[in-house]
């Protein structure tokens, strides 16, 4: 699968007082890579993610998925929201199965896929739990399973670990990395957490706000699994923080 973002510009608001969320942003996403968009509030990273997912289709420029301009949502682009957005009235199993509602598979295959993905995210045994019975981390894992179960070529994650505590966040990052290595699908993750970016990414796209632009793209060459206390890790962190204009 290929994803090309070319000269994408997005403006909000009426003509006279428009806010430019994205200003001629271009990225070529490498198939199978783990790409992380990082930046302060207002830099347009979440906006870009929504454009890629197809939830928003009003923009200038081109976002091409496998050569076709994105005109709406698609099962080939999974998405994980920050607020897990599991339906509270459905069990974990039913929530994940929702993604397969429109898939062209026999029922038995769907059940199998759901079960596999529940195991993949480590929620075996919680198939019949309701979201309110799950911790934040578990709910987010279910959301990730829901994003993956339809086997999209691309998974988008919008600050998926922003709402959980630091300890859970670290665990979930490790989980996500394991899943990425196992499934081999392209992932684009948005975060404001620099450490998360360095931990997970092949490339980090540093964005600057008002208007939203790409400041730098940093290649992270470190082998996985990565350790947050490594010298290399710190070096990359510093590089990104500098690109963000943040004090070290």
């Amino acid at each position: 699968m290929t994803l090309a973002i070319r000269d994408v510009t997005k403006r909000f608001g009426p003509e006279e007082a428009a806010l430019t969320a994205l200003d001629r942003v271009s990225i070529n996403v490498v198939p199978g890579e783990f790409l992380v968009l990082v930046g302060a509030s207002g830099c347009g990273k979440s906006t870009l993610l929504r454009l890629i997912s197809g939830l928003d289709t009003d923009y200038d420029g081109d976002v091409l998925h496998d050569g076709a301009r994105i005109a709406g949502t698609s099962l080939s682009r999974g998405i994980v929201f920050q607020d897990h957005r599991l339906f509270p009235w459905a069990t974990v199993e039913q929530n994940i199965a929702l993604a397969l509602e429109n898939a062209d598979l026999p029922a038995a295959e769907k059940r199998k896929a759901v079960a596999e993905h529940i195991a993949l995210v480590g929620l075996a045994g919680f198939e019949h739990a309701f979201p309110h019975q799950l911790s934040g981390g578990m709910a987010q894992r279910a959301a990730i399973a829901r994003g993956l179960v339809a086997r999209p070529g691309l998974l988008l994650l919008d600050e998926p670990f922003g709402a959980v505590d630091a300890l859970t966040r670290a665990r979930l990052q490790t989980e996500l990395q394991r899943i990425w290595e196992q499934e081999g699908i392209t992932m684009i993750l948005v975060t404001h957490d620099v450490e998360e970016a360095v931990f997970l990414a092949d490339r980090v796209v540093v964005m600057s706000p008002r208007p939203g632009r790409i400041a730098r793209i940093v290649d992270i060459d470190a082998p996985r699994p990565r350790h947050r206390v490594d010298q290399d890790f710190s070096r990359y962190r510093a590089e990104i923080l500098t690109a963000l204009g943040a004090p070290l």
Partner: protein
Amino acid sequence: MSATSQPRALTLAEGLALPVLLLALWDAGSRFGWLDGQVWAAPAAVLTGGIGQLFAPDSWTGLGYSLFRHALGFLAGSLIGIGVGFALGASQRFGLLFGPTLNAAKQVAIFTWIPLMSIWLGTGEVAKIAFVALAVFFPMMLSAAEGVRAIDPRYLEVARAFRLTRWQRLRRLTLPGAMPALIGGVQVALIYAWLAVIGADYFFEAAPGLGSQMLQARDQFRMDILVFDMLVIGLIGLLFLRLARGLETLVLRWRPRAV
């Protein structure tokens, strides 16, 4: 504010004091002729007569008919009410077009429609059931509209992300999402329907039913039957309340326990 530290016997006595007093007055009134004997039956007679009703096949037939009309009217009214309510809640245009008219119609007391309905639908079973359906329609419409509006729009995005069709959205998102409000509507509608069932018997043509039974009992000066039927009506009303509450627990299992 009420003391819970007193012995249960005392609480029982307090609760029984008034009913016992009223019963005694009634009995005395009946014995000493203070009350019109033709109209007022003695409490004992009411008791025996009432028990007699338990074994009278006619009274069970009447109850059956009433419950049947209740069920059918409730179903019809709910289906239409939920459909219209969903449309009102989901589509702004529909709401602007039909909302004011429906709200105005809602204000008209339900029994006011009876003479008109008797002209258009006659006075048979169809009219009775339609009347019950009308009584159910308004609360269900309101609760359905409220339920749809209460659904967090972020879930709609999830539906878009997974490309759910209209029907899938209805089944997986709208209906379960609106369920808490709908259950509230069901609770109200069950009672309204029951009132409409009884009332319908008074105004439409005579046919087996609790309301008809009561009117007949009144004509025949049978206070015992009247009291019995009234208690049945009250009991069934209570059962509907219970039913609704049970439904709530069953269908809304997924809700976190309110702290």
